[in-house]
Protein backbone atom coordinates (compact mmCIF):
# COMPACT_ATOMS: atom_id res chain seq x y z
CA UNK A 1 0.00 0.00 0.00
CA UNK A 2 1.34 3.40 -0.92
CA UNK A 3 1.67 5.82 1.94
CA UNK A 4 -0.10 9.13 1.86
CA UNK A 5 1.71 12.44 2.00
CA UNK A 6 2.17 13.88 5.45
CA UNK A 7 1.09 17.35 4.32
CA UNK A 8 -1.44 18.04 1.57
CA UNK A 9 -2.19 21.52 0.24
CA UNK A 10 -5.94 22.20 0.15
CA UNK A 11 -8.11 24.52 -1.92
CA UNK A 12 -10.86 26.11 0.23
CA UNK A 13 -9.02 29.43 0.34
CA UNK A 14 -9.36 29.79 -3.44
CA UNK A 15 -13.09 29.33 -3.74
CA UNK A 16 -14.61 31.64 -1.20
CA UNK A 17 -15.09 28.96 1.40
CA UNK A 18 -14.73 30.09 4.97
CA UNK A 19 -16.97 28.47 7.55
CA UNK A 20 -16.60 31.33 9.96
CA UNK A 21 -17.01 34.48 7.94
CA UNK A 22 -18.88 35.16 4.75
CA UNK A 23 -17.12 38.52 4.36
CA UNK A 24 -13.74 36.82 4.48
CA UNK A 25 -14.98 34.21 2.01
CA UNK A 26 -16.10 36.96 -0.35
CA UNK A 27 -12.73 38.75 -0.19
CA UNK A 28 -10.92 35.51 -0.98
CA UNK A 29 -13.24 34.71 -3.89
CA UNK A 30 -12.49 38.14 -5.33
CA UNK A 31 -8.74 37.86 -4.90
CA UNK A 32 -8.60 34.43 -6.52
CA UNK A 33 -10.83 35.25 -9.43
CA UNK A 34 -7.59 35.42 -11.38
CA UNK A 35 -5.93 32.09 -12.12
CA UNK A 36 -2.49 33.71 -11.82
CA UNK A 37 -3.28 34.65 -8.22
CA UNK A 38 -4.16 31.00 -7.49
CA UNK A 39 -0.94 29.78 -9.08
CA UNK A 40 1.24 32.24 -7.21
CA UNK A 41 -0.03 30.55 -4.03
CA UNK A 42 0.49 27.05 -5.45
CA UNK A 43 4.01 28.06 -6.46
CA UNK A 44 4.71 29.32 -2.97
CA UNK A 45 3.48 26.00 -1.54
CA UNK A 46 5.66 24.02 -3.94
CA UNK A 47 8.69 26.24 -3.21
CA UNK A 48 8.08 25.51 0.47
CA UNK A 49 8.42 21.79 -0.27
CA UNK A 50 4.80 20.63 -0.61
CA UNK A 51 4.23 17.86 -3.17
CA UNK A 52 0.57 16.95 -2.66
CA UNK A 53 -2.59 18.80 -3.71
CA UNK A 54 -6.23 18.30 -2.72
CA UNK A 55 -8.67 19.85 -5.18
CA UNK A 56 -12.47 19.70 -5.28
CA UNK A 57 -14.06 19.12 -8.68
CA UNK A 58 -15.78 22.52 -8.64
CA UNK A 59 -16.43 24.84 -11.55
CA UNK A 60 -12.84 26.19 -11.56
CA UNK A 61 -10.98 22.94 -11.04
CA UNK A 62 -10.79 22.06 -14.75
CA UNK A 63 -8.81 25.21 -15.66
CA UNK A 64 -6.55 24.68 -12.65
CA UNK A 65 -5.84 21.08 -13.74
CA UNK A 66 -5.17 22.25 -17.31
CA UNK A 67 -2.54 24.66 -16.09
CA UNK A 68 -0.86 22.03 -13.92
CA UNK A 69 -0.77 19.64 -16.89
CA UNK A 70 0.57 22.31 -19.24
CA UNK A 71 3.79 22.75 -17.26
CA UNK A 72 5.02 19.21 -16.58
CA UNK A 73 8.61 20.23 -15.91
CA UNK A 74 7.50 22.24 -12.87
CA UNK A 75 4.50 20.23 -11.68
CA UNK A 76 5.10 16.62 -12.74
CA UNK A 77 6.22 15.45 -9.29
CA UNK A 78 2.94 16.28 -7.57
CA UNK A 79 0.52 13.79 -6.04
CA UNK A 80 -3.17 14.50 -6.43
CA UNK A 81 -5.98 14.11 -3.91
CA UNK A 82 -9.15 15.05 -5.78
CA UNK A 83 -12.40 15.33 -3.85
CA UNK A 84 -15.69 14.77 -5.65
CA UNK A 85 -18.35 15.94 -6.34
CA UNK A 86 -18.84 19.71 -6.09
CA UNK A 87 -21.92 19.57 -3.85
CA UNK A 88 -23.47 22.99 -4.58
CA UNK A 89 -23.74 22.25 -8.28
CA UNK A 90 -25.91 19.25 -7.52
CA UNK A 91 -27.82 20.96 -4.71
CA UNK A 92 -29.13 23.67 -7.05
CA UNK A 93 -29.75 21.16 -9.80
CA UNK A 94 -31.79 18.96 -7.46
CA UNK A 95 -33.73 21.97 -6.16
CA UNK A 96 -34.77 22.70 -9.74
CA UNK A 97 -35.27 19.24 -11.22
CA UNK A 98 -35.60 16.82 -8.34
CA UNK A 99 -33.30 13.85 -7.73
CA UNK A 100 -34.51 11.73 -10.64
CA UNK A 101 -34.52 14.69 -13.02
CA UNK A 102 -30.97 15.57 -12.02
CA UNK A 103 -29.72 12.01 -12.56
CA UNK A 104 -31.42 11.94 -15.93
CA UNK A 105 -29.71 15.18 -16.90
CA UNK A 106 -26.30 14.19 -15.61
CA UNK A 107 -26.28 10.72 -17.05
CA UNK A 108 -28.27 11.07 -20.24
CA UNK A 109 -28.53 14.64 -21.45
CA UNK A 110 -25.91 15.76 -23.86
CA UNK A 111 -23.43 18.40 -22.95
CA UNK A 112 -24.35 19.24 -19.36
CA UNK A 113 -21.43 17.32 -17.99
CA UNK A 114 -18.70 17.02 -20.58
CA UNK A 115 -18.60 13.71 -22.35
CA UNK A 116 -20.72 11.65 -20.04
CA UNK A 117 -23.98 12.37 -21.87
CA UNK A 118 -22.59 10.99 -25.10
CA UNK A 119 -21.10 8.05 -23.29
CA UNK A 120 -24.43 7.08 -21.80
CA UNK A 121 -26.56 7.54 -24.88
CA UNK A 122 -27.85 4.61 -26.83
CA UNK A 123 -31.17 3.57 -25.41
CA UNK A 124 -30.20 3.39 -21.77
CA UNK A 125 -32.81 4.62 -19.33
CA UNK A 126 -32.55 5.33 -15.65
CA UNK A 127 -34.86 2.42 -14.83
CA UNK A 128 -32.52 -0.08 -16.46
CA UNK A 129 -29.46 1.12 -14.56
CA UNK A 130 -28.27 -0.51 -11.44
CA UNK A 131 -27.30 1.89 -8.74
CA UNK A 132 -23.68 0.71 -8.63
CA UNK A 133 -23.18 1.32 -12.32
CA UNK A 134 -24.72 4.73 -11.95
CA UNK A 135 -22.41 5.59 -9.03
CA UNK A 136 -19.41 4.61 -11.16
CA UNK A 137 -20.58 6.81 -14.03
CA UNK A 138 -21.03 9.76 -11.69
CA UNK A 139 -17.55 9.24 -10.24
CA UNK A 140 -16.02 8.99 -13.71
CA UNK A 141 -17.82 12.14 -14.87
CA UNK A 142 -16.36 14.11 -11.95
CA UNK A 143 -12.91 12.57 -12.42
CA UNK A 144 -12.54 13.52 -16.10
CA UNK A 145 -10.95 16.86 -15.30
CA UNK A 146 -8.15 15.14 -13.34
CA UNK A 147 -7.21 12.93 -16.27
CA UNK A 148 -3.45 12.51 -16.73
CA UNK A 149 -2.55 13.69 -13.21
CA UNK A 150 -0.89 11.40 -10.68
CA UNK A 151 -3.89 10.45 -8.53
CA UNK A 152 -3.08 9.12 -5.08
CA UNK A 153 -6.44 9.25 -3.28
CA UNK A 154 -9.95 9.95 -4.57
CA UNK A 155 -12.05 11.47 -1.80
CA UNK A 156 -15.80 11.51 -1.60
CA UNK A 157 -17.04 14.88 -0.23
CA UNK A 158 -18.45 14.81 3.29
CA UNK A 159 -22.02 15.70 2.28
CA UNK A 160 -22.14 12.55 0.15
CA UNK A 161 -20.18 10.33 2.54
CA UNK A 162 -22.29 11.34 5.52
CA UNK A 163 -25.57 11.06 3.64
CA UNK A 164 -24.73 7.51 2.50
CA UNK A 165 -23.40 6.73 5.98
CA UNK A 166 -26.68 7.77 7.57
CA UNK A 167 -28.57 5.70 5.02
CA UNK A 168 -26.35 2.74 5.97
CA UNK A 169 -25.56 1.78 2.37
CA UNK A 170 -22.66 -0.66 2.83
CA UNK A 171 -22.66 -1.87 -0.78
CA UNK A 172 -22.25 1.58 -2.29
CA UNK A 173 -19.22 2.26 -0.09
CA UNK A 174 -17.72 -1.13 -0.96
CA UNK A 175 -18.21 -0.60 -4.69
CA UNK A 176 -16.90 2.96 -4.55
CA UNK A 177 -13.69 1.78 -2.91
CA UNK A 178 -13.24 -1.02 -5.44
CA UNK A 179 -13.91 1.29 -8.37
CA UNK A 180 -11.33 3.86 -7.22
CA UNK A 181 -8.70 1.14 -6.72
CA UNK A 182 -9.36 -0.58 -10.03
CA UNK A 183 -10.05 2.30 -12.37
CA UNK A 184 -7.73 4.96 -10.95
CA UNK A 185 -5.08 2.82 -9.24
CA UNK A 186 -5.65 5.11 -6.27
CA UNK A 187 -6.67 4.73 -2.65
CA UNK A 188 -10.31 5.41 -1.84
CA UNK A 189 -10.85 8.29 0.54
CA UNK A 190 -13.86 9.44 2.54
CA UNK A 191 -14.30 12.93 3.94
CA UNK A 192 -16.64 12.97 6.92
CA UNK A 193 -17.88 15.07 9.83
CA UNK A 194 -18.61 11.81 11.72
CA UNK A 195 -15.25 10.06 11.84
CA UNK A 196 -15.81 7.69 14.80
CA UNK A 197 -19.20 6.62 13.44
CA UNK A 198 -17.80 6.09 9.93
CA UNK A 199 -14.78 4.13 11.18
CA UNK A 200 -17.03 1.82 13.22
CA UNK A 201 -19.30 1.24 10.25
CA UNK A 202 -16.41 0.50 7.90
CA UNK A 203 -15.07 -2.07 10.35
CA UNK A 204 -18.54 -3.59 10.73
CA UNK A 205 -18.82 -3.83 6.93
CA UNK A 206 -15.32 -5.30 6.56
CA UNK A 207 -14.04 -2.40 4.45
CA UNK A 208 -10.45 -1.20 5.00
CA UNK A 209 -7.60 0.47 3.17
CA UNK A 210 -9.57 3.72 3.12
CA UNK A 211 -8.17 7.16 3.92
CA UNK A 212 -10.48 8.98 6.31
CA UNK A 213 -10.32 12.76 6.24
CA UNK A 214 -12.13 14.65 8.99
CA UNK A 215 -12.10 17.92 10.91
CA UNK A 216 -9.70 17.65 13.82
CA UNK A 217 -9.33 20.63 16.12
CA UNK A 218 -9.14 21.02 19.86
CA UNK A 219 -12.48 22.85 20.16
CA UNK A 220 -14.44 20.04 18.47
CA UNK A 221 -15.75 22.19 15.62
CA UNK A 222 -17.43 20.07 12.92
CA UNK A 223 -16.50 16.92 14.85
CA UNK A 224 -19.55 14.81 15.62
CA UNK A 225 -20.22 13.51 18.21
CA UNK A 226 -17.33 15.33 19.94
CA UNK A 227 -13.61 15.66 20.67
CA UNK A 228 -13.38 12.79 23.15
CA UNK A 229 -14.88 10.24 20.73
CA UNK A 230 -12.37 11.40 18.09
CA UNK A 231 -9.43 11.06 20.47
CA UNK A 232 -10.48 7.57 21.41
CA UNK A 233 -11.06 6.46 17.80
CA UNK A 234 -7.65 7.85 16.78
CA UNK A 235 -5.89 6.15 19.71
CA UNK A 236 -7.39 2.78 18.75
CA UNK A 237 -6.93 3.21 15.02
CA UNK A 238 -4.68 1.03 12.88
CA UNK A 239 -3.22 3.46 10.32
CA UNK A 240 -2.74 0.64 7.82
CA UNK A 241 -6.50 0.04 7.76
CA UNK A 242 -7.55 3.68 7.95
CA UNK A 243 -4.86 6.30 7.34
CA UNK A 244 -6.19 9.44 9.03
CA UNK A 245 -6.05 12.90 7.50
CA UNK A 246 -6.90 16.01 9.51
CA UNK A 247 -8.70 19.02 8.02
CA UNK A 248 -10.15 22.19 9.63
CA UNK A 249 -7.27 22.03 12.09
CA UNK A 250 -7.59 25.76 12.86
CA UNK A 251 -11.40 25.51 13.13
CA UNK A 252 -11.75 28.31 10.55
CA UNK A 253 -9.33 30.46 12.52
CA UNK A 254 -10.77 29.93 16.01
CA UNK A 255 -7.62 28.11 17.20
CA UNK A 256 -4.18 29.77 16.84
CA UNK A 257 -1.81 27.73 14.61
CA UNK A 258 0.70 26.74 17.31
CA UNK A 259 -2.03 25.41 19.63
CA UNK A 260 -3.83 23.77 16.72
CA UNK A 261 -0.81 21.79 15.54
CA UNK A 262 0.40 20.92 19.05
CA UNK A 263 -2.99 19.21 19.38
CA UNK A 264 -2.84 17.51 15.98
CA UNK A 265 0.78 16.41 16.52
CA UNK A 266 -0.20 14.73 19.79
CA UNK A 267 -2.65 12.40 18.02
CA UNK A 268 -2.30 9.28 15.88
CA UNK A 269 -2.76 11.17 12.58
CA UNK A 270 -0.94 10.33 9.36
CA UNK A 271 -1.62 13.41 7.27
CA UNK A 272 -2.85 17.00 7.44
CA UNK A 273 -4.57 18.97 4.69
CA UNK A 274 -4.46 22.72 5.09
CA UNK A 275 -5.14 25.76 2.99
CA UNK A 276 -3.38 29.11 3.24
CA UNK A 277 -3.17 32.07 0.91
CA UNK A 278 0.21 33.58 1.73
CA UNK A 279 3.82 32.37 1.67
CA UNK A 280 4.49 33.12 5.39
CA UNK A 281 1.37 31.20 6.47
CA UNK A 282 2.29 28.22 4.31
CA UNK A 283 5.83 28.16 5.69
CA UNK A 284 4.66 28.59 9.27
CA UNK A 285 2.18 25.72 8.96
CA UNK A 286 4.79 23.38 7.48
CA UNK A 287 7.13 24.20 10.40
CA UNK A 288 4.40 23.43 12.93
CA UNK A 289 3.31 20.05 11.55
CA UNK A 290 5.45 17.21 12.88
Amino acid at each position, binding site marked *: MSTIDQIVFGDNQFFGINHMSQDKAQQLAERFHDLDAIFSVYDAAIDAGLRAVMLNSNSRAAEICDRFRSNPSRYAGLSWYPSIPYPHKYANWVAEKG*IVGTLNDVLFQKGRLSGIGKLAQGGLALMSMDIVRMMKMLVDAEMQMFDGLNIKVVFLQNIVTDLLLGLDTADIFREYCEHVRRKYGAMPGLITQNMPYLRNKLMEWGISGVVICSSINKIGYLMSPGVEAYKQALAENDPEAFPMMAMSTLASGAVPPKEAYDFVNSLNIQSVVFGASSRPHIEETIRLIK
Partner: protein
Amino acid sequence: MSGGKIRVGIVGAGRMGITHYAIINSHPDVEVTAVAEPSSVMRLFLDKSVKAATYKDAETMFDKQALDAILLCTPPALNHGILTAAHRKGLHAFVEKPFLLSVREGEELAALFDGSRLVNQVGYVNRFNDVFVAVKRYLQAGLLGEILRFRSEMYSSTVVREEAGEGWRSSHANGGGATYEMASHAIDLINFLFGPPDKVAGSRLTHVFSKNVEDVVSSTFAYKSGCTGALYVNWSDASFRKPTNKLEVFGRRGKILADQHGLKLFLDHDDPERGFKRGWNTLYITDVFNSVPFYVRGVEFTAQLYHFIEKIKAAEDRRTMCSFADATATLAVIDEIFRDAAVIEKEMV
Protein backbone atom coordinates in the same frame (compact mmCIF):
# COMPACT_ATOMS: atom_id res chain seq x y z
CA MET B 1 -42.91 1.29 19.72
CA SER B 2 -41.32 -2.05 18.94
CA GLY B 3 -38.36 -3.27 20.99
CA GLY B 4 -38.07 0.22 22.42
CA LYS B 5 -37.26 1.76 19.04
CA ILE B 6 -39.38 4.51 17.55
CA ARG B 7 -40.55 3.32 14.12
CA VAL B 8 -40.36 6.15 11.61
CA GLY B 9 -41.84 6.32 8.13
CA ILE B 10 -40.63 8.89 5.59
CA VAL B 11 -43.14 10.33 3.15
CA GLY B 12 -41.48 11.80 0.06
CA ALA B 13 -37.93 10.73 -0.82
CA GLY B 14 -36.80 13.96 -2.47
CA ARG B 15 -33.82 15.98 -1.33
CA MET B 16 -35.18 16.75 2.15
CA GLY B 17 -36.70 13.29 2.63
CA ILE B 18 -33.38 11.60 1.91
CA THR B 19 -31.45 14.06 4.08
CA HIS B 20 -33.81 13.56 7.01
CA TYR B 21 -33.68 9.80 6.50
CA ALA B 22 -29.88 9.83 6.82
CA ILE B 23 -29.95 12.01 9.93
CA ILE B 24 -32.70 10.30 11.87
CA ASN B 25 -31.42 6.83 10.96
CA SER B 26 -28.32 7.63 13.02
CA HIS B 27 -30.43 8.00 16.18
CA PRO B 28 -29.92 4.98 18.44
CA ASP B 29 -33.62 4.95 19.48
CA VAL B 30 -35.00 5.17 15.94
CA GLU B 31 -35.59 2.71 13.17
CA VAL B 32 -36.65 3.97 9.75
CA THR B 33 -38.94 1.15 8.68
CA ALA B 34 -40.74 2.54 5.63
CA VAL B 35 -40.57 5.12 2.86
CA ALA B 36 -43.51 6.28 0.73
CA GLU B 37 -42.46 7.75 -2.62
CA PRO B 38 -44.41 8.01 -5.88
CA SER B 39 -41.40 7.85 -8.23
CA SER B 40 -40.77 4.25 -9.25
CA VAL B 41 -37.15 5.11 -10.08
CA MET B 42 -36.52 6.44 -6.58
CA ARG B 43 -38.23 3.38 -5.06
CA LEU B 44 -36.00 1.13 -7.13
CA PHE B 45 -32.87 2.92 -5.88
CA LEU B 46 -34.08 2.74 -2.30
CA ASP B 47 -34.99 -0.95 -2.55
CA LYS B 48 -31.45 -1.67 -3.67
CA SER B 49 -29.66 0.45 -1.13
CA VAL B 50 -31.54 0.89 2.15
CA LYS B 51 -33.29 -1.38 4.65
CA ALA B 52 -36.67 0.36 4.84
CA ALA B 53 -39.64 -1.03 2.93
CA THR B 54 -40.92 1.23 0.16
CA TYR B 55 -44.50 2.09 -0.84
CA LYS B 56 -45.93 4.17 -3.62
CA ASP B 57 -48.00 6.37 -1.33
CA ALA B 58 -48.55 7.28 2.30
CA GLU B 59 -51.94 5.54 2.60
CA THR B 60 -50.51 2.19 1.55
CA MET B 61 -47.61 2.70 3.94
CA PHE B 62 -49.99 3.53 6.81
CA ASP B 63 -52.06 0.40 6.04
CA LYS B 64 -49.16 -2.02 5.81
CA GLN B 65 -46.62 -0.72 8.34
CA ALA B 66 -46.91 -0.24 12.07
CA LEU B 67 -45.35 3.19 12.67
CA ASP B 68 -44.91 5.61 15.55
CA ALA B 69 -44.00 8.74 13.62
CA ILE B 70 -43.64 10.20 10.14
CA LEU B 71 -41.33 12.70 8.52
CA LEU B 72 -43.42 14.39 5.85
CA CYS B 73 -41.38 15.84 2.98
CA THR B 74 -43.91 16.14 0.15
CA PRO B 75 -45.03 19.25 -1.74
CA PRO B 76 -47.18 21.17 0.79
CA ALA B 77 -50.40 20.97 -1.24
CA LEU B 78 -50.49 17.23 -0.46
CA ASN B 79 -49.87 17.55 3.26
CA HIS B 80 -53.36 18.13 4.64
CA GLY B 81 -54.70 14.75 3.50
CA ILE B 82 -51.61 12.86 4.61
CA LEU B 83 -51.55 14.54 8.04
CA THR B 84 -55.24 13.87 8.62
CA ALA B 85 -54.60 10.18 7.91
CA ALA B 86 -51.49 10.21 10.11
CA HIS B 87 -53.51 11.71 12.95
CA ARG B 88 -56.13 8.97 12.59
CA LYS B 89 -53.33 6.43 12.96
CA GLY B 90 -52.01 8.23 16.05
CA LEU B 91 -48.67 9.12 14.50
CA HIS B 92 -46.35 11.91 15.60
CA ALA B 93 -45.44 14.14 12.68
CA PHE B 94 -42.47 16.22 11.58
CA VAL B 95 -43.36 18.20 8.46
CA GLU B 96 -41.07 20.10 6.12
CA LYS B 97 -41.79 23.81 5.81
CA PRO B 98 -43.97 25.58 4.77
CA PHE B 99 -46.19 22.88 6.32
CA LEU B 100 -49.42 23.74 4.42
CA LEU B 101 -50.81 26.45 2.18
CA SER B 102 -53.88 27.34 4.20
CA VAL B 103 -54.07 28.97 7.63
CA ARG B 104 -57.45 27.36 8.28
CA GLU B 105 -56.05 23.88 7.64
CA GLY B 106 -53.03 24.72 9.79
CA GLU B 107 -55.24 25.72 12.72
CA GLU B 108 -57.31 22.57 12.26
CA LEU B 109 -54.28 20.25 12.26
CA ALA B 110 -52.59 22.07 15.16
CA ALA B 111 -55.73 21.54 17.23
CA LEU B 112 -56.04 17.88 16.18
CA PHE B 113 -52.42 16.95 16.97
CA ASP B 114 -52.19 19.01 20.18
CA GLY B 115 -55.57 17.62 21.29
CA SER B 116 -54.30 14.05 20.90
CA ARG B 117 -50.94 14.85 22.53
CA LEU B 118 -49.18 13.92 19.32
CA VAL B 119 -45.81 15.57 18.83
CA ASN B 120 -45.97 18.02 15.93
CA GLN B 121 -43.10 19.96 14.44
CA VAL B 122 -42.30 21.90 11.26
CA GLY B 123 -38.81 22.16 9.75
CA TYR B 124 -38.03 25.84 10.23
CA VAL B 125 -34.45 24.97 10.89
CA ASN B 126 -33.22 28.46 11.84
CA ARG B 127 -34.85 27.95 15.23
CA PHE B 128 -32.10 25.39 15.87
CA ASN B 129 -29.19 27.43 14.51
CA ASP B 130 -26.80 28.20 17.38
CA VAL B 131 -26.26 31.82 16.27
CA PHE B 132 -29.96 32.66 15.97
CA VAL B 133 -30.66 30.92 19.27
CA ALA B 134 -28.00 33.14 20.84
CA VAL B 135 -29.62 36.23 19.26
CA LYS B 136 -32.96 35.27 20.78
CA ARG B 137 -31.32 34.84 24.19
CA TYR B 138 -29.73 38.31 23.99
CA LEU B 139 -32.97 39.96 22.88
CA GLN B 140 -34.91 38.30 25.67
CA ALA B 141 -32.30 39.46 28.17
CA GLY B 142 -32.85 43.02 26.94
CA LEU B 143 -29.25 43.47 25.79
CA LEU B 144 -30.29 45.92 23.04
CA GLY B 145 -32.95 47.69 25.07
CA GLU B 146 -36.19 48.44 23.26
CA ILE B 147 -36.16 46.96 19.72
CA LEU B 148 -37.02 49.61 17.14
CA ARG B 149 -36.02 48.15 13.79
CA PHE B 150 -34.96 44.90 12.21
CA ARG B 151 -34.15 43.43 8.81
CA SER B 152 -34.47 39.75 7.93
CA GLU B 153 -32.88 38.88 4.59
CA MET B 154 -32.13 35.71 2.72
CA TYR B 155 -30.19 35.13 -0.47
CA SER B 156 -29.34 32.19 -2.68
CA SER B 157 -28.53 31.20 -6.23
CA THR B 158 -31.31 28.60 -6.36
CA VAL B 159 -32.96 29.88 -9.57
CA VAL B 160 -30.45 31.56 -11.87
CA ARG B 161 -31.71 30.40 -15.27
CA GLU B 162 -34.98 30.82 -17.15
CA GLU B 163 -37.47 28.31 -15.78
CA ALA B 164 -39.70 26.29 -18.04
CA GLY B 165 -42.60 26.75 -15.64
CA GLU B 166 -43.07 23.01 -15.10
CA GLY B 167 -43.20 20.86 -11.98
CA TRP B 168 -44.82 21.47 -8.61
CA ARG B 169 -42.49 24.34 -7.76
CA SER B 170 -43.85 26.55 -10.51
CA SER B 171 -47.16 27.58 -8.93
CA HIS B 172 -48.36 29.11 -5.67
CA ALA B 173 -51.22 26.62 -5.60
CA ASN B 174 -48.62 23.88 -5.09
CA GLY B 175 -46.42 25.82 -2.69
CA GLY B 176 -43.85 26.99 -5.23
CA GLY B 177 -42.09 30.36 -5.43
CA ALA B 178 -39.52 32.21 -3.35
CA THR B 179 -42.03 33.22 -0.67
CA TYR B 180 -43.23 29.73 0.29
CA GLU B 181 -39.98 27.97 -0.35
CA MET B 182 -37.40 30.42 0.96
CA ALA B 183 -38.85 33.59 2.48
CA SER B 184 -40.87 31.37 4.81
CA HIS B 185 -37.55 30.76 6.63
CA ALA B 186 -36.84 34.48 6.99
CA ILE B 187 -40.44 35.16 8.08
CA ASP B 188 -40.41 32.35 10.61
CA LEU B 189 -37.15 33.76 11.99
CA ILE B 190 -38.95 37.08 12.48
CA ASN B 191 -41.85 35.34 14.24
CA PHE B 192 -39.38 33.40 16.39
CA LEU B 193 -37.45 36.50 17.46
CA PHE B 194 -40.03 39.31 17.48
CA GLY B 195 -43.42 37.65 17.19
CA PRO B 196 -45.82 37.92 14.22
CA PRO B 197 -46.32 41.46 12.87
CA ASP B 198 -49.55 43.38 13.51
CA LYS B 199 -49.57 44.74 9.98
CA VAL B 200 -47.93 43.84 6.69
CA ALA B 201 -47.42 46.63 4.13
CA GLY B 202 -45.55 47.59 0.98
CA SER B 203 -45.14 44.00 -0.21
CA ARG B 204 -43.67 43.40 -3.67
CA LEU B 205 -43.11 40.18 -5.61
CA THR B 206 -40.62 40.26 -8.49
CA HIS B 207 -40.07 37.74 -11.27
CA VAL B 208 -36.49 37.30 -12.42
CA PHE B 209 -36.29 33.89 -14.06
CA SER B 210 -39.41 32.01 -12.96
CA LYS B 211 -42.41 32.15 -15.22
CA ASN B 212 -45.33 31.80 -12.82
CA VAL B 213 -43.90 32.52 -9.39
CA GLU B 214 -41.79 35.25 -7.77
CA ASP B 215 -38.02 35.05 -7.33
CA VAL B 216 -37.73 38.08 -5.07
CA VAL B 217 -40.06 39.15 -2.27
CA SER B 218 -39.92 42.16 0.03
CA SER B 219 -42.25 43.55 2.64
CA THR B 220 -42.51 45.81 5.67
CA PHE B 221 -43.76 44.54 9.03
CA ALA B 222 -45.30 46.92 11.58
CA TYR B 223 -45.83 46.24 15.28
CA LYS B 224 -48.11 48.04 17.72
CA SER B 225 -45.10 48.29 20.04
CA GLY B 226 -43.62 50.79 17.57
CA CYS B 227 -41.12 48.33 16.12
CA THR B 228 -40.78 48.07 12.33
CA GLY B 229 -39.09 45.34 10.33
CA ALA B 230 -38.11 44.74 6.71
CA LEU B 231 -38.11 41.48 4.82
CA TYR B 232 -36.04 40.97 1.67
CA VAL B 233 -35.54 37.56 0.08
CA ASN B 234 -33.94 36.84 -3.31
CA TRP B 235 -33.28 33.32 -4.54
CA SER B 236 -31.98 34.43 -7.93
CA ASP B 237 -28.85 36.16 -6.68
CA ALA B 238 -25.92 34.34 -8.30
CA SER B 239 -23.40 36.15 -6.10
CA PHE B 240 -24.31 33.86 -3.19
CA ARG B 241 -22.59 30.47 -3.35
CA LYS B 242 -24.94 28.99 -0.77
CA PRO B 243 -28.16 30.03 0.96
CA THR B 244 -27.47 32.85 3.41
CA ASN B 245 -29.63 34.42 6.12
CA LYS B 246 -28.79 37.92 7.26
CA LEU B 247 -30.33 39.57 10.23
CA GLU B 248 -29.95 43.08 11.60
CA VAL B 249 -31.59 44.21 14.81
CA PHE B 250 -31.43 47.81 16.00
CA GLY B 251 -32.38 48.75 19.55
CA ARG B 252 -32.03 51.81 21.75
CA ARG B 253 -28.92 50.37 23.41
CA GLY B 254 -27.14 48.70 20.51
CA LYS B 255 -27.45 46.50 17.47
CA ILE B 256 -26.83 42.97 16.27
CA LEU B 257 -25.69 41.83 12.82
CA ALA B 258 -26.04 38.08 12.45
CA ASP B 259 -25.87 35.31 9.88
CA GLN B 260 -25.72 31.52 10.29
CA HIS B 261 -21.97 31.73 10.87
CA GLY B 262 -21.64 34.37 13.52
CA LEU B 263 -22.77 37.67 14.93
CA LYS B 264 -21.48 41.14 15.58
CA LEU B 265 -22.83 43.06 18.49
CA PHE B 266 -22.53 46.81 19.09
CA LEU B 267 -23.43 47.97 22.57
CA ASP B 268 -23.60 51.38 24.30
CA HIS B 269 -22.68 49.69 27.59
CA ASP B 270 -20.46 47.00 29.12
CA ASP B 271 -22.16 43.69 29.78
CA PRO B 272 -19.87 41.86 32.23
CA GLU B 273 -22.39 39.03 32.72
CA ARG B 274 -21.87 37.80 29.14
CA GLY B 275 -18.38 39.21 28.72
CA PHE B 276 -19.35 41.89 26.18
CA LYS B 277 -17.71 45.29 26.05
CA ARG B 278 -19.09 48.67 25.09
CA GLY B 279 -18.63 49.03 21.31
CA TRP B 280 -18.15 46.17 18.87
CA ASN B 281 -18.07 42.51 19.95
CA THR B 282 -17.75 39.53 17.60
CA LEU B 283 -18.99 36.01 18.18
CA TYR B 284 -18.22 33.29 15.68
CA ILE B 285 -20.14 30.08 15.21
CA THR B 286 -17.09 28.42 16.77
CA ASP B 287 -17.85 30.34 19.98
CA VAL B 288 -21.51 29.33 20.24
CA PHE B 289 -21.84 25.95 18.47
CA ASN B 290 -23.13 22.80 20.12
CA SER B 291 -21.94 19.45 18.80
CA VAL B 292 -24.54 17.05 17.48
CA PRO B 293 -24.30 13.24 17.55
CA PHE B 294 -24.38 12.95 13.75
CA TYR B 295 -23.77 15.65 11.15
CA VAL B 296 -25.03 15.68 7.56
CA ARG B 297 -26.00 19.15 6.41
CA GLY B 298 -25.53 21.39 9.37
CA VAL B 299 -25.79 21.18 13.13
CA GLU B 300 -29.31 22.63 13.05
CA PHE B 301 -30.68 19.88 10.79
CA THR B 302 -29.65 17.20 13.25
CA ALA B 303 -30.68 19.26 16.27
CA GLN B 304 -34.24 19.70 14.99
CA LEU B 305 -34.81 15.99 14.29
CA TYR B 306 -33.26 14.83 17.56
CA HIS B 307 -35.52 17.39 19.30
CA PHE B 308 -38.52 15.77 17.58
CA ILE B 309 -37.49 12.33 18.89
CA GLU B 310 -36.80 13.76 22.35
CA LYS B 311 -40.34 15.16 22.48
CA ILE B 312 -41.82 11.82 21.39
CA LYS B 313 -40.00 10.18 24.30
CA ALA B 314 -41.06 12.92 26.74
CA ALA B 315 -43.89 12.04 29.11
CA GLU B 316 -44.86 15.60 30.01
CA ASP B 317 -44.04 18.57 27.83
CA ARG B 318 -44.48 17.58 24.21
CA ARG B 319 -44.59 21.07 22.72
CA THR B 320 -41.80 21.45 20.17
CA MET B 321 -39.60 24.44 19.34
CA CYS B 322 -41.56 24.84 16.10
CA SER B 323 -45.06 23.45 16.41
CA PHE B 324 -47.86 23.27 13.84
CA ALA B 325 -49.30 26.35 15.55
CA ASP B 326 -46.00 28.22 15.09
CA ALA B 327 -45.86 27.30 11.40
CA THR B 328 -49.48 28.36 10.97
CA ALA B 329 -48.57 31.79 12.30
CA THR B 330 -45.89 31.99 9.60
CA LEU B 331 -48.44 30.95 6.96
CA ALA B 332 -50.72 33.76 8.11
CA VAL B 333 -47.94 36.29 7.46
CA ILE B 334 -47.35 34.80 4.00
CA ASP B 335 -51.07 35.15 3.22
CA GLU B 336 -50.90 38.79 4.26
CA ILE B 337 -47.88 39.41 2.01
CA PHE B 338 -49.70 37.92 -1.01
CA ARG B 339 -52.85 39.91 -0.26
CA ASP B 340 -50.92 43.15 0.23
CA ALA B 341 -48.77 42.58 -2.89
CA ALA B 342 -51.87 41.94 -5.02
CA VAL B 343 -53.42 45.23 -3.90
CA ILE B 344 -50.28 47.19 -4.75
CA GLU B 345 -49.88 45.36 -8.08
CA LYS B 346 -53.43 46.37 -9.02
CA GLU B 347 -52.71 50.02 -8.23
CA MET B 348 -49.66 49.93 -10.49
CA VAL B 349 -51.59 48.86 -13.60
